[in-house]
């Protein structure tokens, strides 16, 4: 694996938080965002991007400061320009995808983890928006795979894992069904995973349940990292 970031720690970017904070900051300063004109949004996001603690979480991305370094800012600015140019629906996941695509183009990291979350609108009780969020991610994952095919750094040597972080609570539960994921039940624990690309031996369906803790050892094996002190075990039968 190539080395990125101080002490080889992961580089973390929160695109959705950046968008949220930019929109809220603009509103709190009396500049409600007129969203028919995307170019008016661009300076709001860039102002937030260049401020300290852009994510509102106080995470330190590089070194002690929670502000971003110039290379990363340039990467995200590229994504912002794409966001403004595109006619795609403007959601947090759309922007997350654009930042991820820009990171792939500029840094080509060996390991890239992307978290999408539009479907988490379920917590607010709109099933239709929950499903719309799932459909958005479905499309973005397809576009991500297309991106993998077009970039020489990734084409033919990339394995893509797609998995929900968890399921949802059962209808009729005291935890209000699909709104939440608090139950200790199969409906929250038993989900699915799709695995495609270089490491996959052949098209198949693996019915035997695996644990989420098996995913890290699986990836470690793909990278040829040998035995690491990790919980879980590599998923059998995936690679060539």
């Amino acid at each position: 694996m190539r080395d990125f970031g101080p002490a080889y720690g992961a580089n973390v970017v929160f695109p959705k938080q950046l968008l949220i904070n930019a929109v809220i900051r603009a509103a709190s300063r009396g500049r409600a965002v007129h969203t028919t004109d995307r170019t008016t949004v661009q300076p709001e996001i860039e102002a937030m991007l260049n401020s300290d603690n852009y994510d509102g979480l106080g995470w330190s991305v590089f070194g002690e400061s929670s502000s971003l370094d110039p290379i990363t800012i340039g990467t995200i600015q590229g994504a912002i320009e794409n966001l403004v140019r595109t006619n795609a629906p403007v959601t947090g996941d759309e922007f997350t995808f654009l930042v991820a695509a820009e990171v792939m183009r500029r840094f080509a990291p060996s390991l890239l983890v992307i978290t999408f979350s539009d479907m988490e609108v379920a917590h607010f009780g709109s099933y239709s928006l929950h499903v719309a969020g799932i459909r958005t991610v479905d499309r973005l994952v397809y576009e991500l795979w297309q991106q993998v095919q077009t970039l020489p750094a990734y084409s033919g040597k990339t394995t893509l894992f797609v998995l929900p972080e968890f399921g949802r609570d059962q209808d009729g539960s005291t935890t209000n069904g699909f709104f939440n994921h608090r139950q200790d039940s199969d409906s929250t624990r038993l989900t699915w995973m799709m695995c495609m690309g270089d490491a996959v031996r052949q098209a198949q369906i693996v019915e035997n349940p695996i644990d989420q803790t098996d995913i890290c050892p699986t990836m470690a094996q793909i990278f040829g990292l040998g035995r690491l002190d990790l919980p879980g075990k590599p998923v059998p039968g995936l690679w060539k």
Partner: protein
Amino acid sequence: MTSATMKEVPDKQAADLSRLTLYRGLVARLPVTMRPSVNQQLDQWEMLFPFEQKRLAEFPRGLESLPPASLDALTRPLRTLEANMGVEHWNFVQDSDTMGNASLLARSEYYAEWRREVQRVFEAVNAAGHEKVPSQPRFNRILLMILPESLPVDPTTVWKQWDQAGEEFKIAAESRRLIELLLNGQLGIGTRSANLADAESSDLWLIDAEAKLCSFASALPAACSLSYAILKPFRDKFLAEANTVSKSIQGADQILTAMRHQDWTRWWPADLAGQARLRNFVIDLFLSGNGALIFSNAFVEWAASEALRRARPRVMIARFGMRSRPKPFTSIAIFENQQQVSTLPDVDDPENSAIDAAILARYVWLAATRYPEYEQTYTLCISENANSGYVIAPAGGRPLWSRESSVTVEEVHKWIVERLSA
């Protein structure tokens, strides 16, 4: 107010005070980690609905009925567990449930075991208290949900998700008139039971995404009536405050406590003036999340579910409504006030509102099925747009209508009133 009732109020307050002092003394006999939730409920005694007060009183009654040796034996495993968890070294708040308490407990390696033990003790004490309560009269109940005319549901599919628990039926025309018939005039449900006319009973609830049901409130002064639309000034202010909640547990606890005790007087709608218990219910509702502050249909579902759990009313009418399309950019800040962060006008989203409302109406019914009162509950969900309905009768009871023939809205009204009068 007559002189007799004027005297009753202070007498009742004195009796309540004396009873609460006794209850607090009994709660002090419990293991430390069991005290916060009971103490919090006792502190809010006046804000509890009659059903909650009766149920809460069973717990100290149960404690009182257990001889000290029995209570000691019952709680010994939990006290041992608390010692293993190191509770005595925690900064554990005993008079109310806090996020700080919850996080201390959840981080303990004994958490799962602790939950099981607490559950076991609660059940045993409650059972001891319950034995001393005389059985209550049983009467029919109505759970009516309205999918308004503005929501275009598909009558061929909308009832399929109701687990075949009931029967579809067709309404000949103008099903929207059902609400008027039920809530207005001498033939309305307000005249069918003394309890429904008694504000103290909390036996009649009207929960509305819009403001239609509350327009009948003058004919039903005893109704607990909540409208998402009419609560707008309060919701906006409350949401703005909620968005200042700190991400730290201590900070969040402080702000949530402050929000509970804040003076919101100028933000409440006039309809809720003098209804401290109902206002407290709304604050509890908004603090418990589940989208009640954000989407009108989530408000209706969660308010109705919570009212069923806390008040066990005889009549619950829940009316769903329209939500706007999420606006670009604001959809990523969904917990913000959409009007404030975007200058674009609101645009209705009827098709998706109908999907949400149909699913959430079923959720209200599922919530009702969790309680023993459901055994006497007649559930109806009406689509005004499709002039179609779904009815679930208690076990053994059968509705009068078949899927093949239509009924008039007057017949549906008469059927509901007869169920309540039975």
